[in-house]
């Protein structure tokens, strides 16, 4: 648009200047032509009137001359002939000549030459007429006929008049010519001016036409350009219009869709309202308080229980005033909960939390303990849109907890006391064990030693019976030594500090078999050893377990020509390994399985199988210390199987009692 304005302005300026200039020139020219024509016309008219005047003067001169001639002629002819009418004619004419002379004088008043000639002619006429008159008068009075001289005289006088008249006539003719020429010249000038004016005008018109044509061309070009621009513009307008139209169509469709949606929405809203009502009923029927708020902290849900527990309904307050308004205190009961720690505020922030809050306000004067669980409300995209907090009155629970805590404390104190007592007892037991191992073994050694020396140095002096008694003494001491050692061992298992480490049980078993090698000397023993896993356990104690179990297996298969001892393991469902030692020995009756793991309990006589009845107790104690369990299966005469787990850290109850029979070790 700017372009057009500039364009228009430049074109307009130039055009206007040219048109105005042309018009001014044309007007000036026209005025000049008009004026010249008018002036020339006037001059010509003047000249023409002068020409006419000249003709009148000429006529007048001729008239004067004619009248004068007629009078003279009348007078002279009367004088000659005496015809009366002529005389009357002479009389009548004499006044007319004078009048004509006056008119002539008046007409030629502008011409001094003619005036002077009038001055000449008038007396000549008068003289001539008077002379003729005098002749006439004479005839009339005397009837005398004029003589020739007189006639000649009259002739002569009249010739002079006629000569002057011709002079005047010539003068006027000259004037006529002059004036006619001047009129002609003026007419020529006028014609020229008119012709020139016409040509100039035509030229101007031509120039104007050229200029206008040029302007028209320029305008045409401009129009063409404007046309092009316009068509571009129009095209764009059309496109835009088309776009707008399609947009409008879309809008209309959208509008329609919106209207449909609005309709659906209205219906859904009805459904939602119904649901909301139901939800509200559900919420209000809850025992737990439920409060939800949007991101700005505007409450969306506040069920009946919430109002009952908190003492207030939803208040239009900013979160920072919630603690004070609802009287939410930290567990100390006096410090208001900082806004940022409130479960709902944390929930709105996107954090889930569980908090114990003490509520006390004018409506809940006694104070209530609540447990509040907050969690963020998220939209489908996972964006937090608010928070919800569910809470319940735990005042009673809190009281119970306090009671439990108190009881616990008491219990703990009692446990501590008991532990101290136990520690003391343990110390005493240790001291006892020590003394057993040290002090009890010493006399045994002495009995054993001295009886041996007695036998060696004085045996020959004793009779065979005495010698047998000494041997019985030695056997007794040996057995007691074994008992003492195993009891001590058992005591040590209890006091032994559990040192757990990854232990390759296959290797442990191999070591044990190598230790037990002498026991199987001279026997056919088949060891079936599975590949045992790496296990987290106390290697020293677990070695003891295998030693006791394998020693038993060796012992109770003594009667078998071919002993088969199987060592294996299986995985239980909970991933625990179950280890097994099975033999094809004498076995045991499952009826007595309960006695298997009791101290000093034996299912076989000492004559059948030596043993103290402590080995399996030791096994059980070690397994239990590992948190595992041990049990046995057996059948009399067919063999026995011992199973144990090393559920380290898991306090699995021992299944000892479910296992059966087979007195051993």
């Amino acid at each position: 648009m700017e372009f057009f304005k500039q364009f228009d302005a430049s074109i307009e300026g130039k055009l206007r200047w040219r048109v105005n200039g042309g018009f001014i020139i044309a007007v000036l020219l026209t005025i000049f032509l008009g004026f010249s024509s008018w002036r020339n016309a006037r001059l010509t008219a003047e000249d023409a009137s002068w020409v006419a005047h000249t003709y009148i003067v000429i006529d007048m001169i001729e008239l004067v001359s004619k009248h004068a001639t007629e009078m003279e002629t009348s007078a002279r002819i009367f004088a000659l002939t005496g015809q009366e009418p002529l005389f009357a004619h002479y009389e009548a004419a004499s006044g007319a000549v004078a009048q004509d002379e006056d008119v002539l004088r008046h007409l030629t008043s502008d011409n001094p030459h003619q005036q002077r000639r009038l001055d000449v002619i008038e007396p000549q006429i008068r003289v001539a007429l008077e002379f003729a008159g005098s002749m006439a008068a004479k005839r009339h009075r005397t009837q005398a006929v004029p003589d020739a001289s007189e006639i000649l005289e009259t002739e002569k006088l009249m010739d002079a008049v006629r000569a002057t008249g011709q002079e005047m006539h010539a003068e006027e003719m000259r004037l006529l010519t002059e004036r006619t020429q001047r009129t002609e010249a003026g007419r020529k000038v006028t014609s020229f001016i008119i012709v020139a004016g016409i040509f100039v005008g035509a030229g101007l018109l031509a120039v104007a036409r050229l200029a206008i044509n040029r302007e028209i061309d320029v305008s045409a070009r401009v129009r063409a350009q404007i046309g092009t621009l316009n068509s571009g513009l129009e095209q764009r307008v059309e496109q835009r219009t088309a776009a707008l139209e399609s947009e409008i169509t879309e809008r209309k469709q959208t509008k329609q869709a919106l209207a449909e949606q609005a309709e659906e929405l209205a219906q859904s809203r009805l459904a939602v309202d119904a649901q909301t009502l139901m939800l509200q009923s559900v919420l209000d029927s809850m025992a737990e308080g439920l409060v939800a708020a949007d991101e700005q902290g505007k409450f969306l849900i506040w069920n009946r229980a919430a109002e009952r527990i908190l003492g207030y309904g939803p208040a239009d307050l900013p979160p920072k005033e919630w603690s004070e308004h609802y009287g939410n205190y930290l567990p100390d009961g006096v410090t208001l909960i900082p806004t940022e720690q409130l479960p709902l505020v944390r929930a709105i922030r996107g954090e889930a939390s569980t908090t114990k809050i003490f509520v006390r306000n004018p409506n809940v004067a006694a104070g209530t303990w609540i447990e509040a669980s907050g969690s963020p409300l998220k939209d489908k995209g996972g964006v937090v849109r608010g928070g919800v907090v569910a809470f319940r009155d735990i005042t009673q629970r809190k009281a119970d907890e306090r009671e439990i805590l108190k009881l616990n404390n008491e219990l703990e104190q009692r446990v501590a006391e008991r532990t101290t007592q136990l520690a003391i007892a343990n110390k005493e037991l240790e001291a006892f064990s020590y003394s057993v191992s040290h002090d009890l073994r010493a006399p045994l050694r002495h009995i054993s030693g001295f009886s041996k020396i007695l036998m060696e140095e004085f045996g020959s002096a004793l009779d065979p019976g005495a010698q047998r008694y000494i041997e019985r003494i030695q056997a007794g001491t040996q057995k007691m030594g074994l008992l003492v050692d195993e009891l001590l061992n058992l005591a040590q298992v209890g006091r032994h500090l559990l040192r757990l480490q990854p232990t390759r049980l296959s290797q442990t078993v191999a070591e044990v078999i190598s230790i037990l090698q002498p026991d199987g000397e001279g026997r056919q023993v088949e060891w079936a050893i599975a590949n045992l896993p790496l296990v987290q356990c106390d290697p020293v104690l677990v070695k003891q377990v295998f030693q006791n179990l394998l020693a038993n297996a060796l012992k109770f298969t003594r009667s078998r020509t071919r002993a088969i001892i199987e060592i294996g393991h299986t995985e239980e469902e909970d991933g625990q390994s179950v280890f097994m030692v099975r033999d094809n020995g004498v076995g045991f009756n499952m009826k007595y399985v309960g006695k298997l793991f009791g101290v000093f309990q034996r299912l076989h006589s000492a004559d059948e199988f030596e043993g103290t009845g402590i080995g399996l107790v030791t096994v059980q104690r070690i397994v239990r210390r590992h948190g595992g369990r041990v049990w046995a299966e057996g059948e009399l005469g067919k063999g026995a199987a011992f199973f144990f787990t090393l559920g380290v850290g898991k306090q699995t109850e021992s299944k000892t009692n479910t296992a059966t029979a087979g007195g051993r070790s």
Partner: protein
Amino acid sequence: MNTGKLDILLVEDNQDDMDLALHALKREKLANNIYVARDGEEALDFIFCRGMFAHRSFERPPKLVLLDLKLPKVDGMEVLKQVKSDLRTRTIPVVIMTSSKEERDLVAGYNLGANSYIQKPVDFDQFRETVKSVGLYWLVINQPPVVEDSQNLARTAHDSH
């Protein structure tokens, strides 16, 4: 009491144990040069050549000390500790022979520098075997430090006092 050429210092308070030990040592011909101390104090006096043993010389240390742990006055661990913490006596082999098989005693004994730790077996035959092995090893097989070294060590220790 032979205090001249000494092979074994037996530290034992129990008469029965002492008799059995001596019986076993004699049978193995190891009891020719043996002194028995009946408590820890006597044992220390003997080893450190003081009190009634002031005439003894550090230059003639026992080749082996058989030490019981449960002793009157000064107990066996204390004896071991003093012997092994003194430059003049630390090279003397000390074998703990005790009834106790207490783990803590065992560990403590080795930590203090005991050369062996032996639980006296109840069976006398086994006891005799043990005594024989220990005696043979320390008195016959083991090569003690040369006397000159001991003297140097003794002097150095004296100087440092």
